[in-house]
């Protein structure tokens, strides 16, 4: 690795047109479903709802370098809703962190591609997550360390809306504004579903934007599948240095892109059967 390589030049493939980003996201949706089918279990619904956001982050916003996953000045992403890792795995492999063939070992004994993300086994994973409610606290600590060391890296945390039922999330919402962490960007993947049903029925967490604003977060609400809107929201968040952490409430569709999975909580944690996979891949071709 040559020391001259600089921050701003991530080595990931860089689709320049918005159309390309959409194509890339569609291809990664196919990867997500294929890897979960191969594994025989996994979480398609919440993976499909965050893939567009991850695509914008890794190909438009984040300063990262797959050849130097431990580069100290990289932007960090903590996937607090760790069960959606098939989406992150698809992104990291396409970006060049590890070979795409490894995706098909998801959930198999000895695989670095664990059922939930494991930072010690797979390059590009910043924190091992999956026990819900913890990711934002960890991301906060990363942002605090950056602030203390006067670093310019940004930290992104992706949370589920069902996950917000965990009390630790609210401890983190309460505490991040105290430290003025304006390089911290939290994104709630508001897909409205969780294992036992719709979030509104299991344990309502709304109205989210009002709650975050009252906690002192710079908050916007967007369509999490509108690439331009996602990019605009994240861009404006990372450019603002108003001494407040940023919250993006991304309204998404669980199972987005596959007609029979969309907004059906049954697809939270279930692998498609062969005919279902074929039908889904056809829709995504």
């Amino acid at each position: 690795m040559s020391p001259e390589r600089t921050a701003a030049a991530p080595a990931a493939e860089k689709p320049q047109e918005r159309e390309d980003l959409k194509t890339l996201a569609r291809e990664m949706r196919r990867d997500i479903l294929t890897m979960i089918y191969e594994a025989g279990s996994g979480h398609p619904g919440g993976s499909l709802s965050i893939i567009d956001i991850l695509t914008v982050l890794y190909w438009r916003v984040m300063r990262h370098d797959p050849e130097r996953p431990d580069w100290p000045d990289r932007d960090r992403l903590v996937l607090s809703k760790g069960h959606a890792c098939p989406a992150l795995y698809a992104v990291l492999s396409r970006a060049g962190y590890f070979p795409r063939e490894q995706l098909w070992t998801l959930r198999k004994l000895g695989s670095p591609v664990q059922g939930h993300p494991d930072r010690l086994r797979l390059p590009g994973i910043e924190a091992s997550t999956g026990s819900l409610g913890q990711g934002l606290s960890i991301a906060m600590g990363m942002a605090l360390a950056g602030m203390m060391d006067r670093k310019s890296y940004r930290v992104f945390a992706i949370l589920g809306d069902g996950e917000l039922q965990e009390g630790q999330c609210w401890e983190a919402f309460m505490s991040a504004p105290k430290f003025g962490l304006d390089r911290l960007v939290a994104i709630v993947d508001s897909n409205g579903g969780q294992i036992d049903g719709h979030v509104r029925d299991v344990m309502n967490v709304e109205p989210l934007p009002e709650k975050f604003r009252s906690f002192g977060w710079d908050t916007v609400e967007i369509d999490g599948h509108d690439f331009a809107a996602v990019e605009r929201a994240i861009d404006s968040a990372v450019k603002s240095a108003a001494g407040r952490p940023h919250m993006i409430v991304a309204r998404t569709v669980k199972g987005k892109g596959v007609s029979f999975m969309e907004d059906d909580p049954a697809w939270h944690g279930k692998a498609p059967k062969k005919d279902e996979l074929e039908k889904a891949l056809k829709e995504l071709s």
Partner: protein
Amino acid sequence: MAGAATREAFGEAIVELADQFPHMVVMDADLSKSTMTQAFAKKFSARHLELGIAEQNMVGVGAGLALCGKIPVMTSFACFLTGRLEPIRIAVGYNRTNVKLVGTHAGLGIGEDGASQMGLEDVAAMRALPGMVILQPADAAETRQAVRWMLEHEGPVYLRLTRQKLDDCHGPDYQFRMGRADEVFKPKDASARLQATIFASGGMVPEAIRAARELESRGFKARVMNAGTLHPFDGEAVVRAAKTSQRLVTVEDHNVVGGLGSAVSECAAKDALGIPVVTLGVRAFGESGLPAELYEKFGISSAHIVDACLRNLDLP
């Protein structure tokens, strides 16, 4: 002789070591007056974080700090900190982050505040986490050296400290060695087989030494080993003790399940030592009272230790 509480020695040590460990960050959850971090907070305010009464968030924030090169030292009462077991399991243990958990006011020794403030299951919980080192120093000298070792060590550590003052049990030449139990009382004539070797740790070391002195005055011989590292445990010390003693006695200001008594028993069983192990520890949630009264009531006082050393002993 009359010493300090180990929490006080800890508070002094982090101030003394602050310049040597510039990445150290001290974190509190509204108990800094009790955990003795205020001197550090005053002198190194930029490296002190007050997280409020929200321990699970503090654990996660600490893990994030550690993932970016800091050495977070987070303090609270032993029960409130280790009570957040799931964040500790994942953010500290499974992520293998360089987090230092400091639990003060361990055991019945907190006294009058009563059961809800007593860390009595913390060692059992922390021992079950792969990679966690558990230290419980018995006096100020050991605490200072243990804190230094903890900061030099790359990986999670749980440091268990007392509210109450403890007599010094180490001499001026004392050297802390992680993973090694050290002898803090030796009978005058240790050549013959001992009636017992007593393993104690932290706040129980003074009780154990008092018991050993009492035994000596009555013509019996017992040695006291200070188990300053509770995990990983010094199995060799157990083997050595078994060779020279008729029985092993353990005493802990902690539940009798999962702590020092379990560690010694596991070592004895693993090496098939065939020696009786008498385990003294708390079997309840505790209650309000003076520490000495509580030790008496819950069966871990020096009198109980004497009894455990002599009860049904096959005297020569």
